């Protein structure tokens, strides 16, 4: 239930009750999932939205809002407190109860180097159009039909509130010149299923055979694994498959080695699998570059299996991936609503100015709102924008339970994200699609793959007749990351209607397509996002969106934080009477 300010005459609104099991500051996706999970587990939950923009940094915003949000949270402007932009009369450092100290809560910049290019202001920036855009702050990002996020939604979405659209197709752009084959950049559609392999026009017959055999090997591997766990499988079957087994040693080898040496896939197929299906970031066959991000076979085949399980999970979903209509923000919104349904209280646009700390022990007790009200809870979850103030102690948490990271990532790593609004699709007849530029396919110093996601008006990303394109890449070196994104933009779009025909040699569209004119950019932005990690300590914080295409880290982070806080409670208990029905009608995830 949204608590709205009441009793206008008596100054700032007061929140009742004042003590909770859990206070969540932030309405981003992980915060919202935790709030919903805790509320579902019967905890008393207060969710506070401290920011003028809902669900950030997982929000879907209009172009104007997006830019103001980025500026608000970027390095140049955000070295100050919330109180600076929201003037409230009663900022008190004094607490009503003298047994607490107040540690002021400060924020940190989340973004930097925000660039905006407006080519057609009338088409994008007109006020009447703003509500027709839903631009994701954390794009590109998709759901796999069989991933944990979708499972969670299927479990939780009783009323069938969410609706999704299938991603039509994906392409992997792979530079054959670089592999010494000649032929330049080719748009290869990503064949993720048996029939996609059959239909594919760019694979050779041999490649089709190899790929399908590999897929079969995977299925046999998973089948035998699942069988041996339930029953002692019959020996005859084992003998038949003995030649078709992935050994435990194989699982520990680098995936790229497994694909090229063991399965003997062609370089093209290896690239497609590595970068467009298992979504590797760094160039896998460059030992130097990917020291930190080598995809092991075990991980690789797990991701491939996720892809396979995703194809055909839902009737009506044509591919492996889904995208929520009205944008990513819908997901966070969905869980916020779930928290409210389960009895959680949420208050909006209410900055938190400080944390209440026990004077003697120094551990967390509660928060102080900008209105001066003090609220108490056992646990606190903070959005990544907040810096956990030093000086907190955690007597209740033993040191080995403290942990900070969910995914090991290089601290210097950042994500470069770009959003483009264009007047046309890359490919005729394709509305929503993914494009993967493999490392070094754009420029020689492109160390990581660049992921691109085009969305059309049919997911309400933009007014009809336009397309929204998200680009992202992980980078250690910001300059180089930006160069990759800009190279991709240059390869895909033109900035004016006329100037596009000179650059034929690098035009990826010349193969397999009839389109000769690149889509024209109407508006674009580029920004660098910090990869702030979440952690569990005296107070817990949630992570920023990672550089991946999926939501797995979000679900993972939410689950881990929940389990740390409530080790005895179930994360979204499934024993509710309606549960079975919903799973059977998995189609409740019907696309729009």
């Amino acid at each position, binding site marked *: 239930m949204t608590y709205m300010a009441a009793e206008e005459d008596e100054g700032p609104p007061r929140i009742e009750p004042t003590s909770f099991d859990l206070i969540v500051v932030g309405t981003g996706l992980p915060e919202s999932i935790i709030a919903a999970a805790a509320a579902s587990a019967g905890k008393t939950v207060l969710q506070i939205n401290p920011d003028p923009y809902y669900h950030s940094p997982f929000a879907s915003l209009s172009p104007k809002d997006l830019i103001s949000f980025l500026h608000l949270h970027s390095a140049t402007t955000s070295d100050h407190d919330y109180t600076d932009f929201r003037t409230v009369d009663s900022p008190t450092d004094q607490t009503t109860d003298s047994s607490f100290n107040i540690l002021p809560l400060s924020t940190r910049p989340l973004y930097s180097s925000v660039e905006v290019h407006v080519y057609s202001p009338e088409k994008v920036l007109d006020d009447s159009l703003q509500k027709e855009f839903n631009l994701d702050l954390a794009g590109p990002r998709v759901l796999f039909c069989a991933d944990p996020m979708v499972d969670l939604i299927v479990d939780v979405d009783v009323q069938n509130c969410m609706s999704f659209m299938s991603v039509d197709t994906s392409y992997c752009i792979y530079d054959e010149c670089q592999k010494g084959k000649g032929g330049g950049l080719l748009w290869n559609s990503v064949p993720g299923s048996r029939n996609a392999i059959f239909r594919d026009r760019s694979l050779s017959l041999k490649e089709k055979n*190899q790929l399908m055999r590999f897929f079969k090997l995977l299925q046999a591997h998973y089948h035998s694994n699942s069988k041996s766990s339930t029953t002692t499988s019959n020996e005859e079957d084992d003998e038949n498959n003995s030649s078709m087994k992935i050994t435990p040693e194989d699982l520990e080898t680098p995936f790229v080695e497994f694909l090229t040496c063991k399965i003997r896939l062609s370089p093209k197929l290896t690239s497609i699998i590595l970068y467009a299906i298992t979504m590797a970031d760094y160039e896998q066959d460059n030992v130097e570059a990917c020291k930190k991000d080598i995809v092991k076979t075990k991980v690789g085949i797990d991701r491939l299996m996720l892809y396979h399980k995703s194809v055909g999970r839902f009737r009506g979903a044509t591919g492996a991936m889904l995208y929520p209509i009205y944008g990513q923000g819908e997901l966070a919104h969905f869980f916020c609503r779930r928290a409210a349904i389960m009895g959680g209280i949420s208050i909006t646009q209410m900055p938190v100015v400080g944390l209440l700390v026990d004077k003697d022990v120094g551990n967390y007790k509660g928060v102080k709102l900008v209105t001066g009200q003090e609220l108490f809870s056992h646990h606190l979850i903070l959005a990544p924008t907040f810096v956990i103030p030093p000086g907190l102690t955690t007597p209740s948490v033993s040191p080995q339970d403290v942990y900070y990271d969910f995914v090991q990532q290089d601290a210097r790593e950042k994500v470069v994200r770009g959003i483009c609004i264009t007047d046309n699709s890359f490919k005729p007849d394709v509305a929503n699609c993914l494009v993967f530029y493999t490392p070094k396919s754009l420029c020689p110093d492109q160390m990581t793959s660049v992921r691109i996601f085009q969305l059309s008006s049919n997911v309400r990303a933009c007014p009809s007749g336009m397309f929204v394109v998200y680009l992202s890449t992980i980078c250690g070196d910001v300059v180089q990351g930006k160069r990759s994104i800009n190279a991709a933009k240059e390869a895909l779009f033109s900035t004016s209607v006329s100037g596009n025909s000179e650059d034929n040699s690098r035009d990826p569209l010349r193969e397999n397509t009839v389109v000769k004119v690149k889509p024209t950019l109407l508006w674009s932005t580029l920004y660098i996002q910090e990869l702030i990690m979440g952690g569990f300590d005296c107070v817990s914080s949630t992570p920023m969106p990672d550089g991946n295409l999926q939501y797995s880290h979000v679900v993972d982070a939410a689950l881990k934080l929940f389990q740390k806080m409530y080790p005895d409670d179930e994360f979204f208990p499934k024993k509710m009477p309606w549960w079975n029905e919903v799973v059977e009608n998995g189609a409740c995830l019907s696309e729009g």
Partner: protein
Amino acid sequence: MHGRPRKAPTEEEQEASVVKGAKLRSIQAKFFQFHHTNTYTKEALEVNAKLLEMNPEFITGWNYRKLAVQYHLEAAQSDEDSIKSILDEELKVVESALMTNFKSYGAWHHRKWVLNMGHSSTDRELFLLKKFQKLDARNFHAWNYRRFVTALKNIPDEEELQYTTDMIYENFSNYSAWHNRSVLLSRLLKEEVEGYYPKEKVLTEEFEFVRNALFTDPDDQSGWFYHLWLLDQTVKLEHLLVSSWPPNGSNVNVSDYCALSPSLSSISRTLPLILCFSEAVGGINSSTVSVVCESNMDSNLTWTPISVDKSGFARTWLTYLTFSSEPMHPSRNYLVKVSIANSEGIISSAGFCCSNPSHMAFTVCLPSSNTEFDEGPDIERIDWSEENFSSNQLHSENLGLINSFNELTISGGNKKTYETNAKIIADEIAYCRELLSEMDCKIGKLTLARLLLAYDALSSASRGVQDQNMFQYKEILELYHDLMKLDPPHFQYYKDQYSLVFLKQELANEESLLKYCYQYRDSTSLSNNSLCLCLRGLSLSQIGCIEQLLWVQMLDLSNNGIRSIEGLESLQLLCCLNLSNNKICSFSALEPLRLLKSLKVLDISHNEIGAHPIDTRRYLCASPLSHASDWKREEFVVSGPEMTIYWDAFSIFSGLNLRQLSVTGNPIADKKFKLFLCKLLPAMKWLDDEKLR
């Protein structure tokens, strides 16, 4: 719909089915009451509709509905509205029945029956089909019905072909879609519809299309089925005539063959003429085949198809040339010219017309007087033991007779087409090898063997001669050899194919053929030619290449693994046949012998006849009884109680005039059986080792 294991019903389900059964019985009782009283009231029809919805398989229910519809239509006379409402109701009933079971034959049939009346709109039908094909894309009922509806709606074949493409793109593991594709393409190719001509272009495209399926998942059979169909379309040879006896260019001494005349009368100027075709043909008569002789010859020829069935189609056709009068010059050779397919009328069993005339000629030497053929009492028993055969000292005249057809050039067929098709096959061979280099694949190996064989046939046809040597025969044999090991359940099939290819190689070539020819020691016991073709101990499982063997009179097939002698009926000159030590397991497997009217000596000892209480062949092949119209009923009765046990032996031997028969070493060959044979074959002189009279 496919590959789903059936679960044992739970207790609740069992209970539910008991309840359903009781309900069904009560409705059924009501229905029968209406049915028996010819009641077609609204109530009666409703009961019937309910019954059919519960159990769409109830054929009587559908028949009743047809009667009711006819009754009401009569009453409605020609009022369009009421006719339409009657029929619409039927369509509704069918729909709800199909919802219960969309594989109900009765329901689909009823729908066709209603639509055939022509009063209903067909618009809904495609929509309905879409729904059913979404449920199960391979459901052949729906595909069948689709063909019916598209014919009714005159939807062009091209459109339907696109539909099969779409369905295959959705999931290529769809036998029905591939099958419909072959049906549609056959029509489009036959009618040479624009875009589907020339045939070679279409075939190339189709091979490419299906190749994607084969490479993507070689374990899926549906694509291979279509591939096999395509292969068949590509190797179709237009020339039908393969060989003849007497062979083209040979010289025949008529008196040598007088014993082969249909009746053992004194007519000694009779000569059999045998034509052998590449497939079963019909329409051979004196107008489609002309035979002209310098000497006086009865030109009114009667052609007989040599076939176990009565279809009128056969691979081999036989007639007897009768030279009626005394020759003017006894020592002279007279030319006989044969022209085949002069006029249209020869049709293959596949409906293919033979329009390419072939010509051949041979010379005959007529005896100066009627030399009586006499089977003297001094005729000796034929002894098949090896020492009685010596490697041949062939006379040159014999050689000409053996060389059945190699000289005859094939005039028919478009050589250019064969050349193009041979190229298509060559491409397929290359792709097949590529696939096999990637993985071991049984069906791939089998297909490669078939492709290689097809390539040989096409490339020799394109050169206009029947080839003496097969290029890749060693490889083909190796492939079948591998397959026998790789795929034991289909061992026998591979073995049969192996035998055919082996024989084709060994017998098509004059040089190697001669290696198998032996001279029987004592030519006096044989009417004339004592040359024996000895294919002993080659582990053959069936015989083939019969067109090269029309000349054979003495054939030794002993010590092989022969189970079937299919095709042997073509050897119309055959006198002596040794089938001992083989795997023949029933008399019905010997059915071709019935057509060998010249057969005098037969050895079927040491086989497995009678070993198996049930003759499974009878279920696979047409029963001899179904073709037994030439049996005389009296004979049947006279032969007494043994007939019920030995009727199949009777069906084989009763028409033969055997002089010598060996049956020992078969489980059936006991004393009783031998007695039966003596009764059945009064002219028999030797049974096993015993001299009878």
